[in-house]
């Protein structure tokens, strides 16, 4: 069983094979459509971002609300291709790891290679199963977007499959 700790190093990424199942532990950020748009607007306006993109790991996910006393709600991946139009700009700013579901555009694949980054898929629709692997989650920016807010998430043995690198 292959286990890695976030953030991933260049060596970590180089050592992975397409299609390989990997268990990730460490910290990542959630972001979806609205938050991607907001991050891009902030980059274009030269504003300081609420997350540090250099070496960052983003999970395309918008959770269900947690019950009282529970770490998080259901938390599976959303469709990555909706983020394609924003992705190259974020990769150029240092984003290294993306986790979502489904295919990516040719432009994104090229940008992933150019930036020595990696795209993992995880199991779409397995929100309850994946939530069990989230140990901490807190909203850190854009609460006005509801489930599309940016969450900081600590995961342990979070299963992902190497899809592009």
């Amino acid at each position, binding site marked *: 069983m292959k286990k890695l700790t976030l953030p991933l190093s260049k060596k970590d990424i180089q050592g992975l094979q397409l*299609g390989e199942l990997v268990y990730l532990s460490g910290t990542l950020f959630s972001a979806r459509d*609205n938050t991607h748009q907001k991050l891009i607007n902030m980059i274009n306006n030269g504003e300081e971002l609420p997350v540090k993109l250099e070496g960052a790991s983003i999970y395309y*996910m*918008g*959770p*269900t*609300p*947690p*019950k009282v006393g*529970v770490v998080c*709600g*259901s*938390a*599976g991946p*959303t*469709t*990555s*291709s909706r983020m394609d139009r924003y992705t190259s700009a974020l990769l150029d700013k240092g984003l290294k790891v993306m986790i979502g*579901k*489904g*295919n990516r555009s040719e432009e994104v694949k090229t940008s992933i290679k150019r930036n020595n980054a990696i795209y993992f*898929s995880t*199991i*779409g*629709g*397995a*929100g*309850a*199963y994946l*939530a*069990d692997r989230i140990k901490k989650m807190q909203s850190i920016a854009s609460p006005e*977007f*509801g*489930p*599309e807010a940016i969450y900081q998430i600590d995961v342990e043995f979070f*299963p992902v*499959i190497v899809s592009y690198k």
Partner: protein
Amino acid sequence: MRLIDSNTIIEAVSKNVSDINFIIAPDILSFFKNAKTDKEEKNFLNILVENSEIADSKRIALCQDTGIVIVFAKVGTEITLDRDLQSLLDEAVRKGYQDNYLRKSVVSDPLERKNTGDNAPVILHIEIVSGDVFELWIMAKGGGSENASALWMLDPADGEQGIVDNIVSRIKEKGANCCPPLLLGIGVGGDMEECALLAKKSLFRKIGERNPIQRYSNLEKKILEEVNSLGIGVGGFGGQLTAMDVFIESAPCHIASMPVALNVGCHSTRHCVVRL
């Protein structure tokens, strides 16, 4: 006339629309357990079985996308309501989604994109029927699978092959995005919106339930076979199981037209029927 009290409807709908987000449809669960696949796909199916067990026991949603709610109401001519159905169902969904920690996935305007914060409004289709029937066919529909859906206004001469080619090509392009193994609902005939409605309604069928017309049941089998030859597989990770089943519904149409709609259901296709 039979009066159905507002509170009865609100209680029943809020409970059922929540339960379907925690309890997987029995036919889908049975399919996961019994599907003949290779070892790797079986491992992913086992994860989906485990997902359904965690969801049920901890009352945590099967999928974080707990959907926009669609209701097909059959209201008998002998039924009286004390409030309009739209506001009743909106209230039921607000209550169900708030009380059960389900995600609010509805924006008030497609361009402004501000979350309504309560998962209302419901998308409501009403059919008036004879007698004292009152049925609500309810679906909680995720965005990923809905986004893979499509509609084509084909020429009559495109025939069966035209239907197969368009559906298969759409799944080839989008299938990995929408949580396979999928259920494919297909409407053929009617007009533009009628075929879309047929496609959506067909997703209420159970796995293995064939169209009673031989021609369409054969077409269902043919499309299923072709889609499962695409190699997308469970979770989009490669394999022979891309769709669990294909359901076709047909309707009369104009001499010049052959509308075809595809409504994609994910592996957590969630629906129920409330009869009061």
